[in-house]
């Protein structure tokens, strides 16, 4: 359903002012925020970049054209540019666990384990090339499917699948090696 609707949206030539901004905001904020978290880590920086993304989108909303892309795709394009600008300014990669400042309602042991896993995963993510980390952020941070990622990045769906498969395989190997070191 979602795919057909996105395709349908893309074919409609209406201006952005018909987008219900508040609805879009609440629907897209978690996805954009997590894309940036997986991309750059750190809670404060992630919040800053998320805010920049939405403010840019808001300012440029009249430039948005539904006949060219869905609103979500347009928003992710802005978010990708914001993240890339951030890296061009040579800001350091920070870890995901710093963002997890609000603990879930879990027992303490689970939370400690989760924080530990989060910390280890962030360290592994910082070793990835930009492209691989961005694809992981789009896939797992924002929950986009390969087709949506292809529309954003210009890579083919099969290429994305291959890169993600290879990246996760390498991450898994490193994770297991690290596990043995811990054990």
């Amino acid at each position, binding site marked *: 359903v979602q795919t057909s609707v996105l395709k*349908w949206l893309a074919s409609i030539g209406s201006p952005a002012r018909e987008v219900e901004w508040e609805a879009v905001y609440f*629907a897209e904020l978690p996805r954009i925020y997590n894309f940036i978290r997986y991309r750059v880590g750190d809670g404060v920086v992630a919040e800053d970049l998320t805010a920049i993304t939405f403010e840019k989108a808001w300012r440029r909303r009249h430039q948005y054209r539904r006949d060219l892309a869905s609103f979500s795709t347009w928003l992710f394009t802005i978010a990708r540019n914001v993240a890339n600008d951030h890296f061009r300014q040579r800001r350091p990669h920070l870890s995901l666990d710093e963002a997890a400042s609000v603990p879930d309602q879990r027992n303490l042991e689970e939370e400690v384990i989760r924080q530990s896993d989060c910390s280890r995963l962030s360290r592994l993510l910082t070793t990835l090339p930009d492209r691989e980390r961005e694809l992981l952020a789009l896939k*797992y941070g924002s929950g986009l499917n390969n087709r949506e990622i292809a529309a954003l990045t210009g890579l083919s769906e099969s290429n994305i699948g291959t890169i993600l498969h290879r990246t996760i395989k390498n991450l898994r190997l490193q994770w297991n090696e690290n596990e043995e070191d811990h054990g």
Partner: protein
Amino acid sequence: MKTRKTMDDQFLQDFRRDPRPEFAEALRQKLSQKPWPEPQSRQHATHRRAFLLAGVAAAVTLAALLGFPSVRARAQQFLDLFRVQRFVAVSFDPARLERIAQLKDGKLDLKAMLSQSVEVLKEAGPPQVADSPAIASQMAGIEVRLPAWLPDGVVQEQIRVGGDAVLRFVANTTLLQDVLDALEITDVLVPQELNGATVTVHLPTVVLTHFSRGMAKATLTQAASPAISLPPGVHLPELVEIYLRIAGTPMDEARRFAYSIDWRSTLLVPVPANVASFREVDLGGTKGLLIESNRGRRRRPASRPQSEEGSMLLWSEGDKVYCLSGTIRSLELLQMANAIH
């Protein structure tokens, strides 16, 4: 320290976090403080459309949830009349709705939910025959358009003009909440401000043009936009999301779908998955929605009445909405629609 052992998709997704509520709210307020540069008239028009489609979505959604013939017929009347800018279809499983009706020892009477909430304030009365398109235009107050070309053997029959009507809905969210509770759906909230609220629908005149080829029939319905008002504070995507969750759409997909479309100008058309399929079609640059009966695609047994078969083509152009439906082949319906000028 003990850690999770398997790095898989779920593992990687588990590190998602919702934005801090304080951050989300602060950013929302910051954005909302900036004024919209739209002219007043545009805002007014948008506001009116919001009212309009809210009622449409609610009516059609409720009707589709039920699936009883009388209700379907009534919903069909709405569908033919509503002014929309575009249509979007979603499949739903009627068997799921039947199962819902059986929950709580059959106390979830969905049929009652709708029939008790619709009040006819003004009957449309029987349609009147118009001798020509020009007379029909005069009677209906709209420019009646007809296909300039008809498939081989298809002939135009009567043109009829239906009177205007006024309906009123009284929303009952208690039962809706009961349905959600019975299905253990807790991720959506029924807007409380909707309970007991009334939605008034003014249905304008409608022009019906009938066509036939032997036993095969088709009807072209065209109408101007009705006026619908909805209580303030009702958030359209919320209603769509509730409908999708009840219809069985997974949480993430329902939310994304509901919030990715401008429902102020979009009519949600629920299509029973077991009896019909749908696709978008191009009508000379205008997008239409073609819904085809699955039964109509196969050879019809003599025992099955022809009325169970057929196709429906929906589209909107200018300030009018069109519906071309019948048992004439869908390809021919498309050709007829393309010939309307």
